[in-house]
């Protein structure tokens, strides 16, 4: 990191010097050819410095990125939990700022095809996500990162798509190791939430532990401090909005599919009387290894009820990438407190509020084949999750039974094209719900 800054400083000095020299040369009577020769020399030295800078940054990203096919600087830097002030590299001289364009467009998209093997009449093809974002760098220390998402291609009052702001935060580097983020940002939880581009995970669909338990794409509004240390530790802590238990709809099945997904607020006129706090630690001290965990807790009733309740979600995760292998695992568990008080008026309804819900998965991928343009990585994943692991007692005959734990086995492959395009295929088998067994195909990009 230190050497990167040195290189950045050096290149800016060189550019400044070249302009200063140009001014001085114009005032003096040096021959024009001499002057232009020197300019050429300076330009080539500058290009060399920039190349070294790019190389150093690339090395940094390879160590830090969670992407199997590392995207370009900007996309990875935006999503990575270790936010070095990413200087977008550009070979264009004098395009306004010293270090390349100040405003960068980002995007990712997923087109998915799901074919239930026992129930083919429910085969669906969907433009699952189309995301456009931008990052704008105000100065060396400050940037804004935004992402706008369209789900299911068409959004209107009579269509089923949605348009949403997925991220919109400002980040300022306040010290060498610390940055402050404020706005609507992704929560550092699990492996997928912050790095959820289609090129960042194996399989066509995001795994269930990180969609049903950790409600990806989970974002809250608030402020956080990110600390990045030389020993490979990244620490994050912050205060944000939280969930709203008053939104629980006992007559629908949404709460059974994802308890927190059914009560998230997405900073949409969010009830914010009760704020939540979170912390996350990630260690990348050993090359190829990421070990980390997070915890989030906060009130979820916002004074709208005589009773109060807290939602807590924590996770531990690991990712190990020795050589061609890519192993990962996540365990996540959520709890909601004081549920009997909130379930009492809902007794008998379809979906009561669970006391706890959790899940884990392990995944192994292997880069079977690659050349400079393509790579093929088959993978297998085993996951178990339960969106209603337990219910608090409401009395005999009234307390719902715990849900059955779903077990999903996934086998498939990611085929990466260039840097930033992926074609995926997989087969998924569900132990509790064989009607959901499916064959999936996916096409995605990210830049």
């Amino acid at each position, binding site marked *: 990191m230190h050497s990167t800054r040195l290189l950045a400083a050096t290149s800016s000095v060189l550019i400044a010097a070249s302009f200063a020299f140009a001014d001085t040369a114009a005032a003096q009577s040096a021959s024009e050819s001499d002057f232009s020769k020197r300019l050429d020399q300076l330009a080539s030295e500058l290009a060399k410095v920039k190349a070294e800078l790019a190389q150093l940054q690339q090395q940094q990203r390879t160590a830090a990125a969670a992407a199997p096919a590392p995207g370009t600087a900007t996309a990875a830097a935006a999503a990575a939990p270790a936010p070095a002030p990413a200087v977008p590299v550009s070979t264009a001289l004098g395009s306004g700022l010293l270090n390349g364009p100040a405003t960068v467009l980002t995007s990712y998209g997923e087109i998915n095809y799901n074919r239930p093997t026992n129930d083919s009449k429910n085969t669906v093809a969907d433009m699952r996500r189309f995301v456009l974002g931008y990052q704008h760098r105000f100065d060396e220390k400050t940037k804004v990162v935004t992402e706008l998402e369209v789900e299911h291609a068409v959004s209107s009052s009579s269509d089923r798509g949605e348009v949403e702001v997925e991220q919109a935060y400002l980040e300022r580097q306040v010290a060498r190791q610390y940055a402050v983020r404020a706005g609507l940002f992704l929560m550092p939880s699990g492996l997928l939430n912050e790095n959820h581009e289609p090129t960042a995970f194996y399989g066509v669909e995001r795994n269930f532990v990180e969609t049903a338990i950790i409600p990806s794409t989970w974002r809250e509004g608030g402020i956080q401090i990110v600390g990045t240390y030389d020993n490979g530790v990244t620490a994050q802590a912050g205060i944000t909005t939280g969930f709203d238990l008053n939104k629980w709809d006992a*007559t629908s099945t949404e709460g059974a599919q994802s308890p927190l997904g059914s009560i998230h607020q997405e900073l949409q006129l969010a009830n914010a009387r009760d704020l939540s706090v979170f912390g996350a630690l990630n260690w990348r001290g050993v090359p190829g290894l990421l070990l980390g965990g997070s915890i989030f807790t906060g009130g979820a009733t916002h004074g*709208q009820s005589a009773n109060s309740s807290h939602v807590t979600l924590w996770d531990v995760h690991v990712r190990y990438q020795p050589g061609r292998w890519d192993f990962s695992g996540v365990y996540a568990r959520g709890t909601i407190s004081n549920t009997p008080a909130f379930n*009492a*008026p809902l007794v008998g309804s379809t979906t009561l509020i669970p006391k706890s819900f959790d899940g884990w998965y392990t995944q192994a991928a292997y880069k079977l084949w690659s050349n400079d343009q393509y790579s093929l990585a088959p993978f297998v994943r085993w996951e178990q999750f339960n969106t209603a692991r337990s219910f608090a007692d409401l009395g005999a005959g009234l307390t719902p039974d715990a849900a059955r734990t779903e077990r999903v086995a996934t086998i498939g492959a990611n085929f990466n094209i260039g840097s930033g395009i992926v074609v995926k295929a997989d087969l998924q088998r569900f132990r509790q719900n064989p009607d959901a067994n499916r064959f999936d195909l996916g096409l995605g990009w990210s830049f």
Partner: protein
Amino acid sequence: MAQRRWRLASAMGSAALLAACGGGGTATPAAAPPSAALSAAAALGEKIFRDASLSASGRQSCASCHDPAFGHSPPNALAAQFGGPNLDLQGTRKAPGIRYLAANGPFFFAADGAPTGGFFWDGRARNFAEQATEPFINPFEMANADKAAVVAKIAAASYAADFRTLYGNDVFADVDGAYLRISLAVQQYEREDVDFNAYSSKYDAFLRGAASLSAAETRGLALYNSPTKGNCAGCHPSARGADGSAPLFTDFTYDNLGVPRNPELTRNADPAYFDLGLCQRADFANRGDLCGAFKVPTLRNVALRQAYFHNGRFKTLKDALGFYVQRDTNPAKWYPLDGSGTVVKFDDLPPEYRVNVNTTEVPYNRRLGGVPALSDAEIDDVITFLKTLNDGYAP
């Protein structure tokens, strides 16, 4: 996120759409709470509401059939109240309760085609004011000859001076204008008086955390909510809204239950006469799929009412709930037999409209001879719970 329940599509298409009920049904959070002191218009409206001299008989006011002591429902078990100049002409339908209608608006068809909203059993009035204009001149109710007769009575009432103060000295010169203002004053009273939206039941206290339900009441609530047992919450939602608003125990839609014909209504002596509900409205004369549908009322204060459904066919909650769960398993208990001894199910509808009756939603989806969705003891528990919906709870 759609809150409506999934509707089963039948081969008859929209007929089944009509038969199903949807979600919704909580108090409008933006509605201001009624103030303790009534405005001038509302105070006038209250006087008009209670003034029996405004009827041809001189003995019937709005409050006679919408009695505050009975949840603004009738104070007796008659299938239809008697009105007319001598209070001897039977009305056509049971007088509806008029509480908890603040969130009710004009009639419309929802996005999925479900008829929703409106005042009266067939939703023909758009608001309280429009509803108030009809009883005054209905020959079977307050039976005034015309609007002018009503206006003349107000002009001679003890509060005529208040009327002039509020609406101008020459208000009585224009009959239509004065009649409109009479209905607006009554509407203002119904909107402002806290008795119409008290939320003072034991269940409201329970939702606020100020009371707890007994074991029987809790069992009853569970059966009420369960989509496989009573499923009452399907059309009469019991849950608070996402914004914390109190449940209104109706989703303001319509349903066709095939309630048995009531011989107590003298009109029904003519076998060719049928009360067809929604499709009896002039604007829905060609909507055969709406025939037999009537508005879903609130269940708040249901235990204060003494006759149930649009034709007042049942007089006790036990009978009403028994009908719900045994209609299809034991129709002979609820419907008459024809000459050859066959049960005439849905006898209060002409044969061509009996297909409109809701037979897909729990609990009316059982088969002949099957087990009813609720046992006798379970019905009693539900009734015990329904009693918690009466206003005026004091611990």
